[in-house]
């Protein structure tokens, strides 16, 4: 796609950016969800969970370690993806917004943190990794696609549907806050720092919530031999 030429114009770049960022988002979500969903169930299936639990670590520390491992691996993967994306963009458009790009990378990483934490918590609730993957992927995709618009839909509904949907809108983690592809594609100026920091704080709050939920669930779980 990047090698295509339209009307002998060599500097057309935004469609390439759009395609690359979409593929990065899609592949990062797939990798994050499939990796997180298998962490603890795989340990249980292979019975390696027992030597792990025999070590002087608490169950919460195991969950936290699993989360941090997954998140760090996804971070490394994102850095690789964005590095090659930056090279491609730079080759076609030497003047571009580096700061927007770095902001987007950080937000994307925090979004993956929420998804990983949610999936990890789900893997301790749902019966099999396949169901965890399906439910997490549907939830993440659903929030990314319509999360931003639920309030508008709610306001057009009658009570009690309106209040219920609005409550759902307020309660869900708004992953779309971390999806700033359009700003990067269309060379908008960097996001205002207070808004960016607020989004990070919002993301960390949800990460903490899901990780605590996962720890709480794992602490109370009976692991049969």
């Amino acid at each position: 796609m990047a090698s295509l030429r339209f009307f002998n114009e060599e500097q057309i770049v935004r469609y390439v950016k759009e395609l690359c960022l979409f593929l990065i988002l899609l592949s990062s979500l797939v990798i994050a969800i499939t990796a997180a969903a298998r962490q603890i169930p795989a340990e249980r299936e292979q019975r390696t969970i027992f030597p792990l639990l025999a070590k002087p670590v608490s169950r919460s520390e195991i969950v936290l370690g699993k989360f941090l491992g997954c998140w760090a691996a996804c971070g490394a993967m994102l850095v690789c993806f964005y590095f090659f994306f930056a090279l491609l963009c730079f080759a076609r458009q030497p003047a571009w917004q580096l700061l927007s790009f770095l902001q987007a990378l950080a937000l994307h990483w925090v979004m993956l943190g929420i998804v990983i934490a949610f999936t990890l918590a789900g893997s301790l609730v749902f019966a099999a990794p396949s169901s965890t993957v399906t439910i997490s992927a549907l939830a993440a995709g659903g929030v990314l696609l319509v999360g931003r618009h639920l309030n508008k839909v709610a306001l057009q509904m009658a009570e009690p549907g309106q209040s219920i949907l609005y409550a759902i809108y307020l309660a869900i983690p708004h992953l779309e806050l971390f999806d700033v592809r359009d700003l990067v594609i269309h060379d908008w100026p960097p996001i205002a720092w207070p808004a960016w920091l607020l989004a990070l704080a919002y993301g960390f709050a949800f990460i903490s919530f899901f990780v605590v939920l996962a720890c709480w669930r794992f602490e109370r779980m009976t692991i049969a031999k």
Partner: protein
Amino acid sequence: MTRAGTTAVLLFVACFALGAMLEPKLAPLPIYRRHSGTPLETALGDGRLLFANHFYTKADAYFHRGFYPTIFDNRDAFQAEHMAAEAGAIEEPGASRGADFLGRPKDWIEKLGRSFFPSEHTHLQHGAAGGEHSAPPAQPDVREMLPWLRLTVALDPHKTEVYTVAAYWLRSQMGKVDEAEEFLLEGLRNNSNSYPILFELGRIAAENRQDSGRARNLWEEALTQWKLQNAAAEEPDSFRLSQICLRLAILERDSGNFSAAEAYLKMVQAVSPNPAEVQKRIDELRLEAEKPR
């Protein structure tokens, strides 16, 4: 070889023989004829028209630098593509300028969220204002719409508006007159009687090639095609008729054919929403005609 293996091989041979026997008989049937089209036609069938519309809208979204309503937003101001209106390919809708479909944020999440997607109505930077005849500006951003327009006609070659829109931006804002003309000629090959494409080709002849003879021929042919296609129409395309006749009127006035110019202006007046303004132009033309030369 086992019995199962032999059976599988025999079945495969039977399938192959049947296929080879039936294919020449079935190929000429209308239901299979679509396979002779382009790979896109074969793969997508009529579904490609949906994709074509999607990509055309995508080009308009690029024109707005990503600021575009979704199905959940108020789309009143975005019923017609602004890039087409600005290119003169369609009539500009009244409330499109500065339209903001977002309104006031309904809650803190929506307010915060507006920092993370394009939330200001803006158009791509397209160089110096009024620059149709001036030198093209350096590196205009409007080029970013072009891949989507190209893709649109690859999927639906009969969407004539796309040729005229792309040609306008190519020639007037990017200085790519040859590419614009080539694209319009491709459009004309796919839509041989398209008066919008003929009109746009006439503009290139008049404005970029300074060939008024060719421009006149093209616009007169455009007018003929307009009459043929709109004769029985319930709602004739008066916008395009005005454009063609106005250009022809200017051309005739510049050539000193004042009576022909007046006739064209009267055609404009008949369909204009503001006939008094056109009458003023006619009066000016008459005064000019009466002046001693």
